[in-house]
């Protein structure tokens, strides 16, 4: 029996759905700020949905709703029972449910961003949940963090090192961070940002827009495939 319209339990179909982008990284590194920035910059050109995994309450979701960057209904909060990494890696069921609910209600969508509740450097998204993932570090943790590596730093599709405006205050050397990150990341991209100074985060938005376009291209033949406008982001 195949999935039909009144069947909300259908197994994730790898074709004809939005790109799922995971945004992970330690607490306070700027994940929510980045999600807000992406919504602001990409909102006019992409059909978006956001899932937050708040550790407490629905703080991140509320922040995003208040920021007015996206229709509040398109922001869904998922509770993770003290275990934010479980919700993005070992038991992704609640996040999948939230993503699919957004797609059903507002679909077709081009991009659904899932923000992790924030965890240590070992936390990464399951490939069953995120097609692409961004790991967000900030400079205030010191310039040794990229060298220490960890799955988030080494394997994320994009590493964002945020709060460059604070580098001088905390004595972090951005060239060291850049070199160390490149060494452990096997050529995968690293972007430096200061969301405080450049709230549009053009560089990250451009990268995201690129991966959404290639995602759409890989499933262009699917009858329900999303259509991504090609306007300049």
């Amino acid at each position, binding site marked *: 029996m195949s999935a*039909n319209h009144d069947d909300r339990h259908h197994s994730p179909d790898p074709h004809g759905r939005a790109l799922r982008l995971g945004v992970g990284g330690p607490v306070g590194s700027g994940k929510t700020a980045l999600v807000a920035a992406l919504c602001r910059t990409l909102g006019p050109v992409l059909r978006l949905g956001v899932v937050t995994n708040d550790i407490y309450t629905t703080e991140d979701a509320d922040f995003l709703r208040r920021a007015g960057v996206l229709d509040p209904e398109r922001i869904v909060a998922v*509770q993770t029972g003290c275990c934010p990494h479980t919700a993005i890696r070992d*038991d992704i*069921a609640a996040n999948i449910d939230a993503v699919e609910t957004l797609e059903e209600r507002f679909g077709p969508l081009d991009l659904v961003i899932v923000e992790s509740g924030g965890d240590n450097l070992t936390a990464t998204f399951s490939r069953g949940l995120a097609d692409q993932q961004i790991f967000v570090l900030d400079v205030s943790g010191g310039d040794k963090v990229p060298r220490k590596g960890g799955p988030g730093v080494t394997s994320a599709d994009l590493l964002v090192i945020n709060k460059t405006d604070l580098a001088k205050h905390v004595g972090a050397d951005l060239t060291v961070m850049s070199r160390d990150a490149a060494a452990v990341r096997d050529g995968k991209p690293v972007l430096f940002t200061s969301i405080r100074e450049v709230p549009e985060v053009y560089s990250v938005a451009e990268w995201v827009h690129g991966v959404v376009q290639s995602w759409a291209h890989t499933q262009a033949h699917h009858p329900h495939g999303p259509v991504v406008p090609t306007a300049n982001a």
Partner: protein
Amino acid sequence: MDAALLLLADSRLPAGGHAHSGGAEQAVRAGAITGTEDLARFLRGRLATTGLVTAALSAAACHLAVLLGSHGEDGGRPWTEPSAAAAAESETDARAAWRELDAEADARTASPAQRYAARTQGRLLLRSGRRIWPSPVLDTLAQAVPDGVHHPIALGAVAAAAGCSRHDAAMAAAYTSITGPATAAVRLLGLDPVVVHRVLAGLVPDLSGVARTATAAASGTVEAGVAARGTAAEAVLRIAWEELPAHAAPALDLLAEQHLRTEVRLFVS
């Protein structure tokens, strides 16, 4: 016991269970659980009430799934004929049978917060269950209750798809009715996990008793239905599910509603 029961009852089953505390988070906040002794009492009471009811619903759902899924095999569903119309009719009947059992779960769940938690967990479990143990019976169930069936019903149906017995299904429901809150209390209060597991070990006789009682209740109900109505076809549609246990836990209802209205919470329920 079927080995699949181990997979089904494992807290690592990716079905969203880890985010539910079964009232434990609110009980901790209210000061009703402060340590392992309170926790033991909480779990014992939960098992004797919600645990028994969900175990019976789970066993019943497992039974129903087997009845509905038995067409094609040894004689099959008596009302199944090889015509498309008959197949569609039996599909409609099957959906109606699932909705009836789901309505029984609703009638046993007075608290809207508890119904919401049960349906959310049921939807997540069924989604994962269908990918792990694909089965037409699970597809029918998903279509019968598209917003999410009550968790114990999903559990029983998935148990059947996994090849588990009714007793296994009841055991899985009884077991998860106490392990979820126990784990939540470990995380929330920093309790010694070994001591908490000793508490759980102390509840093993109760667990076995609940699973036995629940299975007997479900089997008795279905068999009475079959005996009274002659054919499985009629029985499936008119099983006297009302006979299943309906033990209330008024404190859990209160905790569930308070939890939903608390701003800072780590668990869904």
